[in-house]
């Protein structure tokens, strides 16, 4: 059984300045995700924390806030784990 809320640890810097390496975040699996939300999604064989830049149907374009270090991804709706609702 998966809890509706998870605590996760942020790794790497592509979400700087919103999130830093080592930050802890609370992720809600029940929240609806829309453009500009920060989400955790499955991609490249790992969990990614990124901001949704836009959506096209079930396709989510996600990218980091730190444009110098960010790589963009496109993920399906089913790959979105949840929305980041709080930074600890």
């Amino acid at each position, binding site marked *: 059984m998966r809890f509706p809320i*998870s*605590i*996760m*640890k*942020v*790794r*790497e*810097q*592509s*979400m*700087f300045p919103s*999130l830093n*390496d080592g930050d*802890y*975040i609370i*992720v809600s699996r029940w929240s609806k995700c829309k453009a500009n939300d920060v989400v*955790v999604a499955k*991609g*490249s064989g*790992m*969990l*990614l*924390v*990124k901001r949704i830049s836009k959506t096209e149907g079930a396709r989510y*374009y996600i990218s*980091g806030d*730190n444009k*110098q*270090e*960010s*790589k*963009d991804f*496109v993920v399906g709706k089913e790959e979105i784990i949840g929305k980041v609702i709080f930074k*600890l």
Partner: protein
Amino acid sequence: MGITRVIMEKADRILHFEEAHAHCDIPCGIYDPHLAQVAAHTVLRMDMLIADLAKSNDMSQEGRNKMIRYVQVKEQHAELVKHEVRVIWGDYAKPEMATQEVHQLVFDIMKAASKARQDTSIDTARALLAKVLQFSEWFWKTKNVEVKRAKSFYPTEAEIVYPKV
């Protein structure tokens, strides 16, 4: 360090929270299709030299050595075309740039480069170069940079795409 962070780190040691990666891939921002064009010109040039050598029927040790060298360079540069295009496509191109037309163009370049390795036809090499020039024009267009197509100064005497600077 705040008290919340200290508590979270202690909790992490016990509970081992999952990690979410703000993944970075060191995109250095330095991309240019010029190397792909030069490599495509090299493939064309090698096919020209191979054709000249074949016409001469030079089966001497020296002649055979030249032929092997031409083929080797052709192989390497056809692969270099694929590498350079793949890096721009994989690391530079944003999802919104990836239209069906450009997907097809990249696919065609991969196939044309493979064909250029398989045979020694000058037409095949010219077809590869033409696709790479189109790709170069697309690349500079994504950066809002005007380009100029001009005859190169290489022995191939084929065209090359330059950004207007």
